[in-house]
């Protein structure tokens, strides 16, 4: 029993990290149909910039804020300099641009920062919380809480605000969006800023648990992508559930079956889900009449 609980805690911790990354994907995807493979780099930057600012003497909360803002600004720059000029290019070309951006940011990070592994203190100390016989780190609660807050925020954004709907409209039909007066460039800028900011936030929250280094981005991007797809790309609910599910499956597999093949099991589950639900768990089937 306590064993199971411990596995669940482990799964929730890891799942929350995945979910946060997956949530970061949704906005850019919703605005442009592009899966931004540089999303993981935003997460890396969130952690690395915070660490450096913290090292430089800034208080941790301020350092985190700096990291989030700087990363959001970088997201905007990426959009302005690389995505917008390529307007109208096929989606695969845009994806390659984001992969290029990911390589570039990683290359830059090892110059600007270093190649060491870093961490900064957990927000509420390291004393584990005991629940029945199991324990969980306070920082895990921060990550889980962060994922939930971001989810609620995004959900409200897309369903309750006009600008949120403008984001959806832009990806659905860019031409029509312009015709109804939506500044699609602004929507894109906003999406990149938000996505990058959420990515950085993920990095800030997760680093005390996962540690960070210039090359952690790809791993995050991959798991986040898998989580987002499992839940259904573009849907915040999907990202949240998908991320947590993968975390839980991995932890339970590691606990009960085989730690070596825990990722394999996660991917097998993804394959199975997609087999029966080709749009992921919560993905809506796009209705195109013929």
């Amino acid at each position, binding site marked *: 029993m306590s064993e199971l609980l411990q596995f669940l805690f482990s799964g929730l911790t890891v799942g929350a990290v995945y979910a946060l990354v997956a949530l970061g994907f949704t906005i850019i995807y919703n605005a442009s149909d592009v899966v931004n493979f540089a999303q993981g780099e935003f997460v890396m930057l969130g952690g690395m910039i915070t660490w450096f600012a913290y090292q430089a003497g800034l208080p941790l909360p301020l350092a985190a804020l700096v990291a989030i803002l700087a990363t959001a600004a970088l997201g905007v720059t990426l959009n302005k300099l690389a995505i917008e000029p390529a307007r109208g*290019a096929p989606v695969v*070309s845009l994806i*390659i641009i984001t992969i290029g951006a990911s390589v*570039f940011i990683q290359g830059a990070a090892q110059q600007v920062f270093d190649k060491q592994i870093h961490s900064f203190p957990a927000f509420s100390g390291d004393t584990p919380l005991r629940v029945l016989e199991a324990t969980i780190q306070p920082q895990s609660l921060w990550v889980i809480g962060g994922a939930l807050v971001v989810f609620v925020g995004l959900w409200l954004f897309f369903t309750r605000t006009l600008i949120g709907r403008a984001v959806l409209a832009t990806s659905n039909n860019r031409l029509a969006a312009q015709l109804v007066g939506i500044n699609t460039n602004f929507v894109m800028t906003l999406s990149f800023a938000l996505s990058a900011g959420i990515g950085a936030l993920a990095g800030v929250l997760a680093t005390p648990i996962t540690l960070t280094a210039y090359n952690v981005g790809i791993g995050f991007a991959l798991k986040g*992508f898998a989580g987002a797809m499992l839940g259904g790309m573009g849907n915040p609910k999907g990202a949240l559930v998908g991320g947590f599910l993968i975390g839980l499956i991995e932890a339970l597999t590691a606990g009960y079956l085989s730690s070596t093949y825990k990722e*394999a099991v996660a991917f097998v589950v*993804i394959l199975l889900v997609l*087999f029966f639900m080709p749009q992921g768990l919560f993905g809506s089937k796009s209705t195109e009449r013929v």
Partner: protein
Amino acid sequence: MPRLSAKSATLLVLAALVVVSPLFFPSGYYYRVGALIFVNGLAVTGIVILTGYAGQISLGHAGFAGIGGYACALAPVHLGLPPALAAVLGVLISGALAYLVGRPILRLKGYYLAVATLGFGILVSMVLNNERQLTGGPDGIIVPDLGLRGLLKDWGLNISNGEFWYFFCGIALLIGAWIALNLRQSPTGRALRALHGSEIAAQTVGIDVARLKLQAFVISAVYASVAGSLLALQNKFITPDVAGFMHSIEMVTMAVLGGAGSVLGAILGAGVLTLLPQVLTVFAEFEQLVLGLVMMLMMIFLREGLLPSLLRKLRGRDE
């Protein structure tokens, strides 16, 4: 002057490149780079068929390269097959696996297909990584010599290892390109491109979309498998990296960078992306930075890919 068909032109250009380039090679190292370009070109030609023609994305094709490569490492030891036959076995396994995996996952579209193929690739590389007893684990395993060079020596043709693999891979690439180009203009190729345009319309003109996609998937898996075998045989050593996610991404990037819809373009992309790290060594520390930058700039300014965009620009000037 009779106009060359695009196909003959492509093949001629390729053949000329393979044959003429060595005249300008200052050292044996260039044969190695050439051979790598050809191997990558071959793998990427498979991506052209799957992604360029049929519009299906795969982020797991390195898995097939891994199977092809490890077949050459394992079959000679465990089954006593000669390495060449081992490569054929790799092709059979890759093809069969592509067939089995492709059936369920090719129903998926776009990113969903991407994540499913990604999962497949990861499963393969995970097995290669973790089944240490069989595969040698992450440290890799030695691949027996192909033995063909020795045979050539017996026939009086004594060439260096580098030269041998250069020409061997060059020929393989030419054959691969020839087949892919045949396909493009053939009824099957047209049907593939049609289903890319509209699956529903393709169905109503009688195209068995599911089957055709599967065929494209299997064919492209075979390409990847052969490329993996060639790489393993040439390196005489193989690690699970060949099957890794990054290698899959690399293949797709090469194809898209060069122009996924065109065989020559994709091979060009393979060339650029293989050469680039070699050239960028002068930037040492800044290598990744520059690599990323080059990728972005190329896609921004040559959005349809290197070759198609350049051709379009050239043609624009003609008119």
